[in-house]
């Protein structure tokens, strides 16, 4: 059954060739493929793999490849990334992608429960060893007493599942960078996947939650080209995380013109001016929000009048307050500490002045 190709499955599900090709074109657009990159792993004839229209390349890949088995771990998470994915409003794309993968294990979505579902996971890990894609949602506590599932700590579960994975996708800020659980004082010692896994390719799809299309697009890339997309220094796919929210923001012209909303209900806010002063983190946040948006391109936070929180960046919970302007320092001394510093200056100055005076008096006396 694993040998049945995606296209065969889609045909059996009643998808016509025309719809299939339309879907392939949509996928290509989503992944930002203007030119099919030369990917040997796609297993295509040279003239297709070296460039040209990407849609046929995707069609060919989907017609010849089997579905990708996925094991989805939920650790210290809120299931928000799963929620976002299941409620994605791009049915042509997401439906397609959901048919291209087979979710072998997912704690929230699996029908089975208890020992049965754990057994199913073990079986899937054995059957697809070295081939399956491991998706991790939620952060990993370093303190073993937090987040145990079936008697195993989150770290054990991750390491066990990672051992046989072809690649690991860390979806959401928690699994990518530690997210909310890592916020100060980080009681569970939470960390991201990359802090533990070094010998496997890891793709981060951060966000709170991750944009579903960024997730499905990355999965589609893995499926079609058999490898990872181009990643940035934080292991995020450049297709979706190549630009800042600020770069593509619809309020950007107001930033350039220096027109800012000062409060959430002033004239500037009503006019849709830039939210920089209200704490927008768009300039340092790399994500596709302003481009792909949410709910099938309906809107995204800044469009709806709320500043960007920077949820696809590391440590965004400790980024100095959501409503504090981005130029403000992250740490500032309180009045006590500042007074103490001033006191040190005062004492040092007075002390040296007194020493100098005493020295002068002594030399005057000596004369």
């Amino acid at each position: 059954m694993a040998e049945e190709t995606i296209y065969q499955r889609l045909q059996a599900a009643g998808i016509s060739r025309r719809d299939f090709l339309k879907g392939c074109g949509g996928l290509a657009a989503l992944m930002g493929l203007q030119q099919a990159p030369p990917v040997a792993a796609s297993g295509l004839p040279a003239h297709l793999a070296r460039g040209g229209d990407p849609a046929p390349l995707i069609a060919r890949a989907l017609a010849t490849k089997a579905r990708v088995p996925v094991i989805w771990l939920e650790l210290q998470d809120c299931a928000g990334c799963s929620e976002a994915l299941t409620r994605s409003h791009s049915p042509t794309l997401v439906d397609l992608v959901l048919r291209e993968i087979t979710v072998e294990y997912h704690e929230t979505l699996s029908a089975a429960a208890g020992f049965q579902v754990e057994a199913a996971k073990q079986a899937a890990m054995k059957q697809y060893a070295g081939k399956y894609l491991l998706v991790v949602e939620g952060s990993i506590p370093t303190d073993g007493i937090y987040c145990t599932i079936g008697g195993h700590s989150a770290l054990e579960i991750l390491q066990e599942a990672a051992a046989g994975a072809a690649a690991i996708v860390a979806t959401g800020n928690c699994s990518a960078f530690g997210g909310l659980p890592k916020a100060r004082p980080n009681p569970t010692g939470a960390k991201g996947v990359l802090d533990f896994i070094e010998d496997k390719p890891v793709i981060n799809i951060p966000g709170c939650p991750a944009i579903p299309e960024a997730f499905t697009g990355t999965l589609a890339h893995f499926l079609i080209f058999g490898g990872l997309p181009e990643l940035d220094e934080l292991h995020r796919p450049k297709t979706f995380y190549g630009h800042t929210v600020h770069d593509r923001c619809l309020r950007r012209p107001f930033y350039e013109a220096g027109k800012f909303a000062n409060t959430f209900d002033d004239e500037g806010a009503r006019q849709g001016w830039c939210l920089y002063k209200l704490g927008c983190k768009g300039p340092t946040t790399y994500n596709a929000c302003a481009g792909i948006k949410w709910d099938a391109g309906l809107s995204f936070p800044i469009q709806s009048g709320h500043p960007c929180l920077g949820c696809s960046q590391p440590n965004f919970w400790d980024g100095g307050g959501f409503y504090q302007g981005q130029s403000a320092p992250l740490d500032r001394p309180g009045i006590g500490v500042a007074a103490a510093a001033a006191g040190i200056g005062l004492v040092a100055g007075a002390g040296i002045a007194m020493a100098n005076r005493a020295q002068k008096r002594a030399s005057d006396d000596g004369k």
Partner: protein
Amino acid sequence: MNWTSFLEFTRGPLFYAALLIFIAGMVYRLVRVIALGWARDRVKSRGSKLGGAVRSLLKGFLIWPFIPWVKNTFSRSPLIYVAGGLFHLGLFVVIFLGAAHMLVWKSLLGFGWPTLPLPIVDWLAVVAIAAMIVLFINRLVHPVLKLISGPAEWLNLVFVFLPMISGYILTHHLFFRYETAYSLHMLAVDWLLIWIPLSRISHFMFYFFAKAIHGAQFGKRAVAP
């Protein structure tokens, strides 16, 4: 270390430390200057010392800048006067009336104030940067200035120039990624904060004391400055 975490460092702990060094250093400098001692005043005042000090400060801010040609400083070296004046004006507007900087003050002091539109601040920033370059070249070629310029003077120019140029690059998203430019700007600012108490840039504080003391002397002798 990537730029994102470096930015966190320069905006966070490094800024924190630099600010404390700045506060301690400035208080230290002030105490040292005050503790140098005061000459005992044995002569009866002919006028009000306080009045003289206030007048001197007010005139320095409200009158002389607008009729500079009556001053010898202007007629003898108009270039330094104009470039220096524009530099200080630009710096003041950028630091206090630029939106991004006001937010820094707001986070430090707990209250904010209205700011000027970005294009105006922007032009004044350009003016300040240009003035600084003019002053730099002047110092390079002026026969007397050249003689009295040591390493400290050149370093002062460089260390003030770096935050300004990096801030301009940051605002306009030039050359670098935003967090890179931001990190460099913060690094330059943090270093400047540490450098100020060690250097003559501390004149921004001593200026007011010096002006007040001169004014008090004028007031005592009842001679209008």
